[in-house]
């Protein structure tokens, strides 16, 4: 994977900003074995996300999900994290930058601090949380589980430095610490410094500065959060009473022309407000009325439209299409009055609310802007960096990349995608730094001691409030073999640390651990690492998932919930007592990559991988590369898609590391990340390839719904065809008088419930192109919600300036289209005039959007064993935090195969997928978890049942040492079944079917399952 030409440059990437985007970029680089320095001006990393209570669309508290990423263990020494650090100057150019860093004193030695909280108790005035609602100073521990897990002191607020120094039991406080300046060399720079939120203080008509009950959406979020200023209670700041009616006002500081508002759309606020409204009703009080005042409901992300539907239908969130012009509180009145006007009723409406939440958008931070200017990065007037129209993470300065909200307002999945894309490009400029991996060997004691079990009941604030943790601990203590039990509060600034837990467990001589808490999926790794430090085999742990399986589902039945929690704990105990120590299986990886789909996304991903040294197999089912982009001419920004396509196709076909297979389909597949084997049908001939990672970039299908005379009348076409007409049949376009565009045709309806995302900008792009050729034409855009998110909003503004008429229609009164001689008559209802309007159109452009390529996706999903969404798109692993990873390790998804999106977003995702794939391919070996099946050869009757039932064709009856490539050299093993741990998927089918009971599945051995069942059914057995 090492490209020698890159060795000239400095092998380090500097990541500025330790929010989610910065963390993701840094981790991608570190996992791909590139050295990275991550700096953040805050004392710990986490950024904005760490302040959120829940995140859409899953409405989970994702702090625990993020925590494993931010924890520093196991990055192979590639990641250097520095808090309280700013970049003061940068010189040099791509390949050899020199950055000057300034680290402010923390006054606490991070190496010594155990985060015991003693300083916080004795000197609370030096300590705080923030933002907004908390009056105390910034910040001691910004959020629970902060990384680094240590406090920080605001020395200016401290009167007696000596007393403060002495209060620390481990002597970690250093009141005389000084700022530290340093210069670092780096090959490329990723700016992930985030953005500020718009400050609405000067908007006197919203009363934010004067009215305590008017808050910003982030402040409201903090009020919802268990770690927030009210400890997770939703109370009106003015009187401490719970609110009955809450209103959200959208687009505060975004989509505006005056009072400092930005001209762009901040993209994330609509979902943010919906989430807050849902959480308010779901978690606090079903009786709280929630109303959102909006201009356009912009739920354009993957499955976000369904979230909007759920908010309306399931949670009863009220949506009002209006922009309130005043929020008042008359003298002596306890409530806020919101004054607004509706489309169809031109009069003032005054409505009373207890709280008003302002959905404030994103804004450039002044310090970040200065740094960007110092770097010479070209900026927009609003201060955000300009990026390439086909490469949203590349700035005007080579070697300087951006990701996240610094590039413009966006939500978490898009930030994560950009972060991986930026790391792909920045990492491509620097070489892998070889460092020996310090992987702890599996601990396999010679003799298994008598079980001594430690029980940790991990609680998570609001989430687990139904569980009586103390009672659960008391219950656990009475169970045989349990030597200690404790509660560990994982969410809310608890004083108990993993370190102290470790010493407790070790003091009691624990040799097995049970965690009663949240899903093993996120937590297990952390606790397994803890076991490793204690010298205990990492498989001697069991998790009872009482958060999801008890607290979440039985929150309203405390008695039954606690009984079930006790039972689950007892089952987990029985299981762990019967568990055996196991060893992982280590295999060498294959460093090739498979890319399925030869559109712009697939080609971009292939080129990024190939440029970084991977051998890429690019598989395309049609006869040529290009995909749907072959129908495109230009992007809305003016980017030449045809030139892009030609360039990509030429580079791809000529690249020495890329092998292109056209007329090729995937027919079979086996193996695991790092060791896949995929069978292809190349123009009818079978070919097998081996690869370590795979990227799916199979695209989507332009929708062709039967509606509005599409396919029946030559004057009705979709936006793709309209674009072609405008670029190829100019004479015709110049003669047009009226053009009508209809949005959401075949999207956001019963058959295709999601938004196709790209059609709003695409109709505006076409409208602007038509107006350029024919300034006299009248263009009508009939829409439901105009979703020109981000900078597309500026084109929407431009279209309105040029006279394009935008008219909202409702689904219960859609436009009518009928052929009328040489024209097509479009009839719609104008809400303001209150009557029907008929337009004789020369051309009707329908925004038909995209649908998933359902059949081919299903076929691929079956071969690869991957999940699809309900709509037939490929499902990512985690909608929020893992937007390009798939549930199957080593598989990644990019482009419209994931969900509809515009071309530059597809390319960003392609680079992100390449970056994620590189984290797999950079490893020489792969550690296979021990959950594979093994054969007791003394019991095996060689009956062939395992060979026949295995869905992955793994077991073999060994004939000789060479013949089947098995590693068993033991003579007694010949003529018996052999299961290769590297190939076994751990499904357990063979173990269940083996008539001789010769096969056991590690971690799920009969003894463990029977012990659990005996425990679970104990009453029946009495």
């Amino acid at each position, binding site marked *: 994977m090492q490209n020698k030409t890159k060795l000239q440059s400095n092998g380090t990437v500097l990541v500025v900003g330790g929010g989610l985007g910065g963390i993701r970029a840094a981790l991608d680089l570190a996992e791909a074995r590139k050295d990275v320095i991550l700096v953040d001006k805050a004392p710990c990393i986490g950024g904005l996300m760490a302040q959120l209570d829940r995140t859409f669309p899953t409405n989970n508290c994702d702090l625990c999900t993020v925590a494993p990423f931010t924890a520093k263990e196991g990055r192979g020494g590639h990641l250097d994290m520095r808090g309280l650090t700013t970049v003061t100057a940068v010189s040099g150019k791509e390949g050899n930058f020199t950055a000057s860093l300034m680290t402010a004193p923390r006054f606490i030695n991070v190496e010594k601090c155990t985060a015991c909280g003693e300083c916080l108790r004795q000197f609370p005035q030096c300590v705080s949380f923030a933002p907004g609602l908390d009056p105390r100073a910034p910040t001691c521990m910004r959020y629970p589980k902060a990384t680094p897990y240590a406090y920080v002191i605001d020395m200016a607020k401290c009167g007696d430095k000596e007393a403060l120094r002495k209060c620390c039991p481990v002597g970690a406080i250093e009141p005389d610490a000084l700022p530290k300046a340093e210069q670092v060399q780096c090959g490329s720079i990723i700016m992930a410094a985030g953005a500020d939120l718009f400050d609405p203080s000067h908007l006197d008509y919203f009363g934010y500065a004067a009215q305590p009950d008017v808050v910003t959406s982030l402040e409201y979020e903090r009020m919802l959060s268990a770690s927030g200023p009210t400890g997770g209670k939703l109370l009106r700041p003015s009187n401490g009473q719970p609110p009955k009616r809450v209103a959200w006002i959208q687009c505060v500081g975004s989509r505006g022309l005056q009072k400092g508002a930005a001209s762009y759309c901040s993209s994330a606020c609509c979902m943010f407000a919906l989430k807050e409204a849902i959480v308010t009703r779901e978690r606090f009080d079903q009786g709280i009325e929630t109303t959102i005042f909006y201009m356009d409901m912009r739920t354009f992300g993957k499955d976000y439209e369904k979230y909007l539907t759920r908010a309306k239908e399931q949670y009863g969130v009220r949506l009002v299409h209006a922009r309130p012009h005043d929020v008042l509180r008359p003298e002596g009145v306890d409530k806020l009055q919101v004054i607004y006007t509706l489309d169809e009723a031109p009069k003032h409406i005054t409505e009373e609310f207890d709280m008003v939440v302002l959905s404030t958008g994103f804004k450039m931070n002044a310090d970040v802007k200065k740094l960007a200017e110092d770097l010479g990065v070209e900026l927009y007037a609003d201060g955000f960096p300009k990026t390439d129209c086909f490469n949203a993470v590349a700035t005007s300065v080579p070697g300087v990349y951006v990701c996240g909200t610094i590039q413009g307002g966006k939500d978490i999945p898009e930030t994560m995608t950009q972060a991986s894309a930026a790391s792909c490009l920045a990492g491509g400029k620097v070489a892998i730094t070889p460092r020996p991996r310090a992987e702890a060997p599996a601990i396999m004691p010679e003799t298994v001691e008598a079980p001594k079990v430690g029980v940790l009941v991990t609680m998570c604030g609001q989430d687990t409030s139904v569980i009586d943790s103390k009672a659960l601990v008391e219950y656990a203590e009475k169970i045989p073999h349990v030597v200690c039990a404790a509660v560990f509060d994982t969410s809310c600034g608890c004083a108990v640390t993993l370190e102290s837990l470790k010493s407790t467990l070790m003091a009691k001589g624990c040799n097995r651990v049970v965690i009663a808490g949240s899903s093993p999926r996120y937590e297990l790794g952390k606790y397994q690492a803890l076991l490793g430090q204690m010298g205990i085999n990492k498989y001697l742990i069991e998790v009872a998932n009482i958060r999801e399986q008890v607290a979440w589902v039985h929150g309203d039945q405390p008695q039954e919930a606690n009984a079930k929690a006790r039972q689950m704990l007892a089952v987990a105990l029985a299981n762990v007592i019967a568990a055996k120590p196991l060893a992982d299986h280590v295999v060498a990886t294959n460093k090739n990559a498979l890319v399925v789909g030869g559109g712009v996304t697939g080609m971009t991903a292939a080129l990024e991988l190939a440029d970084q040294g991977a051998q890429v197999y690019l598989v395309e089912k049609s006869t040529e590369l290009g995909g749907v982009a072959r129908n495109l001419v230009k992007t809305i920004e003016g980017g030449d898609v045809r030139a892009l396509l030609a360039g990509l196709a030429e580079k791809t076909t000529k690249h020495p590391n890329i092998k292109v297979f056209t007329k090729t389909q995937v027919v079979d597949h086996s193996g695991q990340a790092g060791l896949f084997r995929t069978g292809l049908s190349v123009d009818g001939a079978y070919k097998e390839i081996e690869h370590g990672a795979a990227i799916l970039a199979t695209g989507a299908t332009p929708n062709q719904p039967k509606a509005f005379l599409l396919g029946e009348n030559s004057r009705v076409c979709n936006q793709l065809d309209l674009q072609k007409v405008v670029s190829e049949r100019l004479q015709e376009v110049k003669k047009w008088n009226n053009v009508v565009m209809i949005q959401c045709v075949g999207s956001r309806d019963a058959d295709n419930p999601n938004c196709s995302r790209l059609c709003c900008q695409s109709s505006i792009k076409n409208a602007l192109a038509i107006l350029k050729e024919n300034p006299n034409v009248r263009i009508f855009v009939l829409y439901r919600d105009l979703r020109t998110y981000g900078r597309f909003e500026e084109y929407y503004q431009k279209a309105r300036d040029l006279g394009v008429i935008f008219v909202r229609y409702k689904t219960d009164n859609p436009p009518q289209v009928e052929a009328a001689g040489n024209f097509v008559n479009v009839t719609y209802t104008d809400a303001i005039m209150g009557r029907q309007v008929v337009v004789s159109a020369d051309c009707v452009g329908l925004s038909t959007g995209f649908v998933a390529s359902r059949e081919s996706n299903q076929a691929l999903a079956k071969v690869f064993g991957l999940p699809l969404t309900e709509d037939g798109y490929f499902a990512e692993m985690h909608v929020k935090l893992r937007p390009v990873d798939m549930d199957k390790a080593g598989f990644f998804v990019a482009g419209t195969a994931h969900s509809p999106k515009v071309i530059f977003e597809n390319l960003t995702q392609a680079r992100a997928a390449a970056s994620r794939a590189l984290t797999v391919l950079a490893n020489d070996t792969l550690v296979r978890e021990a959950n594979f099946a093994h054969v007791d050869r003394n*019991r095996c*009757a*060689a*009956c*062939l*049942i395992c060979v*026949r*039932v295995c869905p992955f064709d793994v077991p073999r009856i060994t004939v000789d040492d060479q013949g089947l490539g098995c590693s068993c050299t033991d003579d007694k093993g010949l003529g018996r079944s052999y299961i290769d741990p590297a190939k076994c998927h751990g499904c357990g089918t063979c173990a269940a079917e*083996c*008539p*001789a*009971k*010769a096969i056991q599945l590690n971690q799920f051995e009969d003894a463990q399952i029977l012990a659990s069942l005996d425990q679970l059914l104990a009453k029946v057995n009495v």
Partner: protein
Amino acid sequence: MITAERKPLEELLGYIAPYGRILLLGCNECVTVCAAGGRKEVGLLASALKMAARKSGKDVEIVEHTLERQCDPEYVEEVAGLVGQADAVVSMACGCGVQQMAMRYAKPVFPALNTRFMGGSERQGVWDERCAGCGNCLLGVTGGICPIARCAKRLMNGPCGGSANGVCEITPDVPCAWHLIWERLEALGQTQQYMEIIPAKDWKTAQGGGPRKIIREDLAE
């Protein structure tokens, strides 16, 4: 391989009704391979018997064990201790194993299986009869397909009038053995073999001569 199927639970419950301590004994040979009497089946039957006993309010103790082979005295000797502690033995071996146990031990031994036939596996979970153990193998002249085991009438010289479209008249699931033999000989280019008359079979080598025995002079002492 000898194939077998488990007996209905009611019949087994009837056998063990008088006894409190049962040794349930599996065999790791043919009956494991045909999924009738290996460790897994022993475990399943033990659970079923225990559940049935508990349902009827009876206390029964079942010890599970599986021998490498139940038709050899040396293996059978291994369970002397377990048999000593049991009131009765339920054997999940074929009839050979059951008798080996019954010959060795003075305790009641009951069969848990119905031994069916000598056969081979067609695919996972399906076995068919291939050999009738007639003691005088004809496969060399019948294209490798046995008319004794696979023809309902054990005809020696071609099919009967009930053969139609390649299947036997007893049921359409059974292919006509002689049809198969013909096709096979045709494929091998040996149809002249079919013209040879096979003389009437001497059934003395089959069970017609009473219980059979093999004595290998060179091995037996």
